[in-house]
């Protein structure tokens, strides 16, 4: 596609429910990244994928968070038993490869509100 797309754009859920956030990277990009941006804060790195594997999951805040990527393309970030502190904008980015010289292209994010 022309750019990184994310769905849904906005999600409102009740505390305790599970949510799935989707990211479609730019076609041909092998690296994919998830970040979280809490209100008034900078971005917090969550996880990145090189192909379908995630070499570093240390940024995931708790075991309620998980992510997968299939077919080297679409990725899903799942938050189980959501809490109010999970409310944030979740941003996805992709790059041609996983290296500093590879610009990360960001999607518009999913705004998650947990009531």
């Amino acid at each position, binding site marked *: 596609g022309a750019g990184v797309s994310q769905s849904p754009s906005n999600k409102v859920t009740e505390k305790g429910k599970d949510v799935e956030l989707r990211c479609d990277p730019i076609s041909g990009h092998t690296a994919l990244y998830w970040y979280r941006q809490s209100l008034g804060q*900078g*971005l917090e*790195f969550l996880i*990145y994928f090189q192909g379908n594997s995630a070499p570093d999951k240390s*940024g995931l805040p708790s075991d309620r968070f998980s992510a997968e990527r299939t077919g080297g393309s679409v990725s899903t970030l799942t938050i189980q038993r959501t809490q109010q502190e999970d409310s944030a904008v979740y941003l996805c980015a992709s790059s041609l490869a996983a*290296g*500093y010289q590879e*610009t*990360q292209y*960001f999607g518009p994010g999913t705004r998650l509100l947990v009531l």
Partner: protein
Amino acid sequence: AQTVTQSQPEMSVQEAETVTLSCTYDTSESDYYLFWYKQPPSRQMILVIRQEAYKQQNATENRFSVNFQKAAKSFSLKISDSQLGDAAMYFCAFAPFQVVQKLVFGQGTRLTINP
């Protein structure tokens, strides 16, 4: 752990004037990369400029330039001839050489352009 600090939550500048956004960082690494990202209201992060720590020459991209002071761990962004389209949140980010995928972001500076 690396930290990035942006001490100016908000800045404003008259159109066509020059503005400098400040960023300092803390790291024990000797090799790393620094970035400035722009986030307009659309929420999509856009790479503005990047700097490799081993390069002494300051990076420039058209109206955007940086003042990189490695010893002082300072990385400021100068925007010349400010335009209305420059209005956005600006984030400074750091990536260690060994794990360039894990960008560490500052809290951002909101830049307003006054016509």
